[in-house]
């Protein structure tokens, strides 16, 4: 049964970046600007969507023992397609994302969703799951990218916000990636903890 829960589960409750902490390499490497982050997120979303659809379609004919290599070939084929398309139509973005486009193959989110969800559920559910997780990942990347670009360069998506008046260029360099993600994770932990406490209190009152 198609269920909207599959969508929201990946998007918020089990967000691949902030809750499950998967796919950290692209999250750190491609978030130097909001635009790169968005491009990477969408490329991953398409790879995830297509591979989830195919894997859920072939789930009944794939022998149990060789499923992992088959999943890898499916994912790698779609990533190659996306790589070639981006090279053709978005050469600038392709250039700045560099080897991280072919590296979508080893992004643990895609393999994780294939193994944990698409191999056990129908096509419609798998599409919802892929959209939820893919958009969750894209949103997280966009958030990290925006924060880094805003504080590091004073702009978001290339649009000037406060320009040169306040800038910490370190955030665009390598250490900034780790620091920003660490801080954002701590922020979401705080929100999560507060919600849990609220629920506990509400439960105690009843």
């Amino acid at each position, binding site marked *: 049964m198609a269920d909207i829960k599959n969508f929201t589960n990946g998007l918020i409750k089990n967000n691949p970046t902030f809750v499950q902490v998967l796919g950290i390499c692209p999250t*750190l490497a491609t978030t130097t600007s909001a635009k790169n982050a968005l491009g990477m997120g969408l490329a991953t979303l398409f790879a995830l969507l297509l591979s989830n659809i195919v894997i859920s379609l072939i789930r009944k004919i794939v022998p149990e023992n060789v499923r992992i290599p088959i999943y890898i070939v499916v994912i790698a084929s779609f990533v190659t397609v996306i790589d070639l398309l981006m090279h053709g139509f978005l050469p600038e973005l392709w250039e700045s994302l560099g080897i991280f486009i072919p590296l979508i193959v080893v992004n643990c989110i895609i393999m994780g969703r294939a193994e944990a969800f698409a191999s056990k559920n129908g096509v419609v559910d798998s599409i919802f799951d892929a959209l939820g997780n893919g958009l969750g990942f894209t949103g997280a990347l966009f958030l990290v990218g925006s924060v880094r670009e805003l504080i590091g360069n004073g702009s978001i998506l290339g649009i000037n916000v406060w320009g040169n008046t306040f800038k910490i260029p370190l955030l665009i360099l390598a250490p900034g990636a780790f620091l920003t993600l660490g*801080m954002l994770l701590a922020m979401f932990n705080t929100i999560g903890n507060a919600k849990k406490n609220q629920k506990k209190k509400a439960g105690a009152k009843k």
Partner: protein
Amino acid sequence: MNLVLLFISAALINNVLLSRFLGECPFLGISKSKDSAIGMGLAVIFVITLSGAITWFLNELLVFLGLEYLQTIVFILIIAVLVQFVELFLKKTSPSLYEALGIYLPLITTNCAILGMSLLNIRENYNFIEALINSFGSGCGFALALIIFSAIREKMQLNDVPKAFEGTALALVTVGLLSLAFMGFSGLV
């Protein structure tokens, strides 16, 4: 002399973990104890050098056949096969090394540093020796960063940290500081 510079830049300046952002998953996952960090580090040095060499030859073959677009698929399959093969080979020939590396080897297939360095070698147009040195250097850099970080993390386990920072958040901030320290190496070359 150039090769020495290449090694230093691969290991320290462009450290795979701290400045190229490759292989973060095992870095955050396996760095909780120093012993497993050493095991993982050695396994990565071994496999990354081997796969760097093999993928270089494979790429020549693909270019010869005019099939460069198959790079990603071929490389990831070769790496997966290679890891399995190394595991079987070590089990037969050197049980003690197998004991030490054993559980970390299968995890390496999904380590993006291996595929990443193979692709980088080719994008940078390195010749065979340069590719070998570059792969070996980055493997050493991976091991170095992993071992340093695990030592820091072992100390941190006993500390009292704010609740929000428990776990990965604090680890990431620590890596950020470590990465800041490694930026100092950029003055070396």
